[in-house]
């Protein structure tokens, strides 16, 4: 009878520390999103004014996933009353009036807000929508927001994206879920020289490194916000 080798049991401390695990010495008083976020971006030699592209991490963001039937006018109204702004009904657009509300699908939105407000806002939304066929989930722990700014911001992103990112096609107020490099991301167009990337936390380190590499020929300024 043939004997098969038994897999070596996992030894604690034998693997390299990844960017998504809590940093050593992080105090419990730090907010969860800060403790579990990627490590601060290494400061680059390039100073902000001369940089053609600036990449920064927004570690102060909280995220809510909202699902409801867009044809249920009362549910939309109830959600919009709590948000204090309209929800985008057109595909691949977002509204920005206090929070960012991104269209994710015909019955799904992502709300980006100040991290400290996310839990309370989620509670208020859930209460207002309790009588409707709707779902509110706090997904703050699952996403990271990166900001790519500067004259070459879109040129850098275009290196890893199949979409036409020219401001004529990807105008302010539009957002797309697409691939950047090998990761799935949400791209949002602020003004012609600003793009927001919302990416799953587990992919954030990859995307950050991909951006650093893609931005290198553009006198990149990399900083943490």
């Amino acid at each position, binding site marked *: 009878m043939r004997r098969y080798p038994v897999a070596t049991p996992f030894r604690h401390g034998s693997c390299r520390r990844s960017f998504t695990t809590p940093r050593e010495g992080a105090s419990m008083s730090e907010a969860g999103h800060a403790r579990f976020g990627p490590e601060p971006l290494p400061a680059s030699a390039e100073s902000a004014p001369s940089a053609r592209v600036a990449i920064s991490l927004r570690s102060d963001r909280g995220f809510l996933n909202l699902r409801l039937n867009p044809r249920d006018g009362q549910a939309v109204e109830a959600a919009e009353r709590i948000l204090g702004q309209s929800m985008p009904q057109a*595909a691949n657009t977002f509204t920005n009036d206090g929070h960012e509300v991104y269209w*994710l699908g*015909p019955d799904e939105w992502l709300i980006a807000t100040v991290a400290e407000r996310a839990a309370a806002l989620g509670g208020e939304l859930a209460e207002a929508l309790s009588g409707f066929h709707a779902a509110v989930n706090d997904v703050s722990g699952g996403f990271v927001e990166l900001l790519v700014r500067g004259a070459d911001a879109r040129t850098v992103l275009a290196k890893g994206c199949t*979409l036409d990112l020219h401001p004529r096609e990807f105008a302010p107020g539009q957002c797309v879920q*697409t*691939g950047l490099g090998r990761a799935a991301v949400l791209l949002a167009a602020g003004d012609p020289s600003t793009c927001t990337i919302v990416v799953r936390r587990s992919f954030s380190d990859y995307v950050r490194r991909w951006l650093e590499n893609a931005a290198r020929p553009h006198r990149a300024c990399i900083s943490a916000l």
Partner: protein
Amino acid sequence: MLLIECPWCGPRAETEFSYGGEAGIERPTDPYALSDEEWADYLFFRRNPRGAHRELWNHAQGCRRWFGVERDTVSYRIEKSYRLSGAGSGRPAAAHIEASEEKRR
């Protein structure tokens, strides 16, 4: 690379999608009434035609919705893509459920 039109997001690169196989396969309402051969046919056998083919695609890196596509398996030409019935399709979910209930009777 195929350029596939998502019914919600518009034309996108094939790499954003995942393939879901032949469309329009209905689950038998009473599996126990079927012979093993008929059940295996439902589970495993697909038409695999040369020419026009109705298939399912999922916009995996985009809006994550399933939709239908009519594609020619020889020329790879996509004739049309369309929303499936049900929630989020532009057709009320309740009507969809009623329609399938109707069919069952």
